[in-house]
């Protein structure tokens, strides 16, 4: 039975959620500065990992792979931590992010090119998630692909073009022994069309604004026909950097 996307359990949250911090350490993170909280996040993550009820604990993250002032990583390291990195054409990311951020495509491109880009980071207010350092699109990708842990690279375009083999590889990386039938059922349950239907009928609580759609289009190639030539040029340059890193063999990618 497919999970209702609006009923994801309270104990299965994004890595930057403040909730586990408060539960595990016993006080609200709102009493600390962003830097103080960041120093404690690895401790919280280690407790989440250690005490998870099943052998595999999967959490999503928007953070780039960065390091704390003492040199330790914010997001864990191998062998206890591993990552699946979903890489998408930055031009398509820009168009999608523009909708989510309520910005123009040009503004989204500008953000994707910034090395100092963060989200959930406004003076005078607080969010359910910690401030997330994203860096530029290329720096974000390279930071994870070179993180000190096993990394499985999933290309968004491959998820569209060859869903079964793409998700089968992800399952194998995670050590999950699922049949092709099971994988296909899961792909159908999480299909964009199904999620769009749910959002149309009852809404989706992670939508950025009541009037916006979280599951917008889910297509590939939209950026190339939407963005201006100069914007595309900037993003292709970022994409080239990432592809060069992947081709160089200097990443931690385990295919």
């Amino acid at each position: 039975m497919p999970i209702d996307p609006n009923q994801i359990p309270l104990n299965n949250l994004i890595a930057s959620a403040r909730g586990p911090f408060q539960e595990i350490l016993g006080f609200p993170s709102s009493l600390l500065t962003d830097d103080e909280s960041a120093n404690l996040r690895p401790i919280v993550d280690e407790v989440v990992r250690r005490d998870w009820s099943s052998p595999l604990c999967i959490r999503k993250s928007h953070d780039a792979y960065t390091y704390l002032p003492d040199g330790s990583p914010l997001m864990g390291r191998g062998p206890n931590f591993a990552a699946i990195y979903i890489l998408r054409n930055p031009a398509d990311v820009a168009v999608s992010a523009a909708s989510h951020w309520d910005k123009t495509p040009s503004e989204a491109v500008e953000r994707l090119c910034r090395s100092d880009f963060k989200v959930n980071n406004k003076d005078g207010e607080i969010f359910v998630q910690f401030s997330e350092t994203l860096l530029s699109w290329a720096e974000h990708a390279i930071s994870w692909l070179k993180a000190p842990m096993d990394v499985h690279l999933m290309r968004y375009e491959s998820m569209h073009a060859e869903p079964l083999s793409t998700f089968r590889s992800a399952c194998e990386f995670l050590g999950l022994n699922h049949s092709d039938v099971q994988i296909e059922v899961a792909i159908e349950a999480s299909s964009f069309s199904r999620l769009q239907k749910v959002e149309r009928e009852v809404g989706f609580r992670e939508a950025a604004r009541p009037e916006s759609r979280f599951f917008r289009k889910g297509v590939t190639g939209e950026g190339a026909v939407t963005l201006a030539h100069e914007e595309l040029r900037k993003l292709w340059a970022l994409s080239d950097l990432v592809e060069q890193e992947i081709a160089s063999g200097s990443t931690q990618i385990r295919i």
Partner: protein
Amino acid sequence: MSHSYLYCGLVIESDESMPELQHATADQRPQIAISRGLVEIPRDQDLYAGPNWVIGQLEAFWWLKGVACFHIRADRIVVDSKSNSDPGLVRALLLEGPMIMAMIYRGEFCLRAAAVSDGSRAIAICGMASGGKSTAAAFAVTRGQRLVSDNLLRITFSENCTPLAWPQGNGALLWPRSIALLGLDEVPSQCVRKELSLRRVHLPCQSAPVPLEEMHLLRRHSQIPLQLPVPFQARSARQTFGNIGLLTAGRLWVDQARRTHEHFIWSHSLASKCRMQEASNELIFRGHGSLRKRTM
């Protein structure tokens, strides 16, 4: 000089001033004593250790590295803070983990929830950390309700098994954007610590315990006011029971403090008396008339 205060309906006696709290009356006997002293974290193998806490059946230790350590029992908390620690932060921390632990040792439990009351009944507002509970409660107060709790709602049961919500008694912790949105700029408030713009706002409070009638689960972080309603859903008693377990303050410590049975009874009683409902800001404030701000 000794000071007596009320916190979550319990009388605490402190050597030092705690301006966050309301004073208890002279006839109210202290239940938890707060004092300063040296605290050493034990390395006892029989104690259950977490990242910043150690807990046993009768006593616990809780700390924030570089700021303060606390030794906690059911009737006493010893505070050992660093000389350069911000006193406001130390007090704010004392009112969190250490007090939660002390209450658990007393067989008392709290929800991580804000709550408001019209004087005759209370509504608890549960949800994700920093998810807008305090702001939602403050919004209700600007429309005539009274604040019962900001983030810790102690619940006990009357003789006829009615759940009672106890005033937390330390105002509402709000960020400047919420204060501005709600027009609370002129309401007395104090800085929590100088590094943060977070403020403790002294809103009109409920003074006595009041029956808890509803629990609302805020499932999204909403701007005020919402443009579209979120569908209303009542959770089953089983789902409510599960959420109460997850939303209990200090839930990771209950078993180690050997209060599992009491917590089960408490959770079951609460779930059977008070169903949890999905809510949006609009639903919480249903029945409060126009959304135009009223003068407090």
